[in-house]
């Protein structure tokens, strides 16, 4: 019995595992696909299919609330992405191109801390923090509050691929630059930095996705008029639903897919 199985299979194969992998993919994708398909429903109910149409995309894109949410989202995520990636890039250099220093381990932990704390805890803690600032010091940065909160958890996401890139880089290349008369600044400008770019792009993409998609933290700290796209969807769910929500969800999903794929392709190209 076992022998006949051996004849036809690679030794590595485990029976049934392939089927399980397919089931996993179906589990992951079928709900998303159904959500997307319903965004093309021409009827106004999310329960009854009437025909194919793009009308709900039109409704969504003409909605002023959607415009405001999209604008807020872009302001927040682009700012948070740029600031966090800059900080993360500097930190990655400061922790790989350096003589080991006291406090380096602790700094590494600090940078990765936002990844370990459950999001809801970060959310309520940040809420308390900004409430205190507003109450005691009369400090309120408006949408800046959200940007600050996003920057905190974007830093480790941007940091990971940049640091990995610097660690994979052959240090001999930097030695070779110095050997060929490049001053430390020139060696950085002409060799280290250009080779870091794929890592930085990956970092930018990941920071953007996590900021763009954030719901929990934003929901707790956002004030009136600071609705982002995920918050907008949340507000829609609590009303009678129309396929407009599917259309907006589809747009959000496509943005995520785009950025993940870009980041993934960059990472794949660099590993070649």
């Amino acid at each position, binding site marked *: 019995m076992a022998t006949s199985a051996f004849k036809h299979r690679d030794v590595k194969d485990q029976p049934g595992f392939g089927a399980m992998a397919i089931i996993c993919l179906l589990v992951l994708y079928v709900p998303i696909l159904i959500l997307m398909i319903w965004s093309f429903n021409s009827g106004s109910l999310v329960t009854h299919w009437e025909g194919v149409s793009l009308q709900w995309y039109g409704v969504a894109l003409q909605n002023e609330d959607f415009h405001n949410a999209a604008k807020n989202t872009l302001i927040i995520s682009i700012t948070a992405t740029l600031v966090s990636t800059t900080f993360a890039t500097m930190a990655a250099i400061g922790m790989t191109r350096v003589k080991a220093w006291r406090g380096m381990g602790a700094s590494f932990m600090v940078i990765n801390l936002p990844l370990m704390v459950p999001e809801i805890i970060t959310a309520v803690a940040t809420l308390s923090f900004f409430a205190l600032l507003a109450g005691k010091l009369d400090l309120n940065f408006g949408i800046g509050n959200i940007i600050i909160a996003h920057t905190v958890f974007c830093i480790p996401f941007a940091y990971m691929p940049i640091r990995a890139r610097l660690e994979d880089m*052959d240090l*001999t*290349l930097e*030695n*070779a*630059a*110095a*050997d*060929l*008369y*490049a*001053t*430390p600044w*020139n*060696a950085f400008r*002409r*060799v280290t930095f*250009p*080779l870091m770019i794929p890592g930085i792009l990956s970092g930018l993409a990941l920071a953007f996705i996590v900021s763009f998609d954030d719901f929990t933290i934003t929901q707790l700290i956002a004030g009136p008029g600071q609705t982002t796209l995920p918050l907008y969807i949340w507000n829609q769910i609590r009303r009678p639903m129309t396929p407009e929500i599917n259309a907006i969800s589809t747009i959000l999903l496509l943005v995520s897919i785009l950025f993940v794929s870009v980041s993934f392709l960059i990472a794949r190209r660099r590993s070649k």
Partner: protein
Amino acid sequence: MAAGQTAIEAKGVTKQFGAGPDAVKALDNVSVSIRENEFFTLLGPSGCGKTTLLRLIAGFDFPTEGEILLYGQDIAPLPPFKRPVNTVFQSYALFPHMTVAQNIGFGLEMLGKPRSEIDARVTQMLQLVRMEELRNRRTSQISGGQQQRVALARALAPAPKVLLLDEPLSALDAKLRKDMQIELKRLQHETGITFIFVTHDQEEALTMSDRIAVMSKGNILQVGSPRDIYDRPSERFVANFIGETNFLAGEMAGVSGGEASVKLTGGSVITAGIPEGLKPSGKVTIVVRPEHADLVQGETPADLRGVLENVVYFGTDTHYYVKLDGSPEPFIIRQQNTRGGGQGFARGDKVGIALEAHSAQVLRD
């Protein structure tokens, strides 16, 4: 060998890694001087300190003690980008985001040379390493051997006073390695630049070098021409590291004309060279290369006597293993087959060994 001007001189260089009880001395009070236009090889097993010495000359590390002089000027405190010395790295370290031409021109660009001069020099270098047609290729699109040539051209382009080569051939296959050995010799000859070459491959060192320094455990044991090193090793380690060899015990019988008379355990007296500065006395060890000994019939007068233990045929030559009277190690003799070797003797024969005159060497034990 013309005694040229000294290009690089290391004076009492020590390099220690770590501190306290964990400290490791990678180089221990090393002094050596390397002449202008010389192909100088640092030879030794891994961990002997050869690469450390090279890195100190390049400026990637700094000596704990001692000086490194380049044409009389101490360069040890200078960072690498201020030293007129270039390196060919073991991994080549070509910049992957630049073309072949950009790689070769990098050093000149960093020196602030005008574009036209850089372009001309790059063209000249590409011709030198015979790679003109690959000028605008990415370094990832060329073969290992071609990358090797680009690395050479890149290091030679700024016309360094000294070129350092860190096991540059180790990643190539045997055939390509042979070609590159010849190529390197040609480049050294054409450019007239001093080459300092690091390798653990004794054959490579013997073929290419003007002079060789054999290193072990952070020390330079012997410096000399390939022939010196091979025929007249001054230390047991050198003799062992380079080629097969025979060690014989003996007693000093006197010194005349710079050569020692050594009385072997078997009774015969032979002459042997003396390493520089050594005043041997009492019991000594001498070394004889397998090709400097002849096998003779048992009855003929001979320096050593024993029983033929094994005969191994090697195509061009034959190796005889002789069990000497009163010695556990077999004595090895290598005879060219063209000269009638490989015939007339059989295992178990009682044989004599005649040593070639002046072929033995006293070791600095």
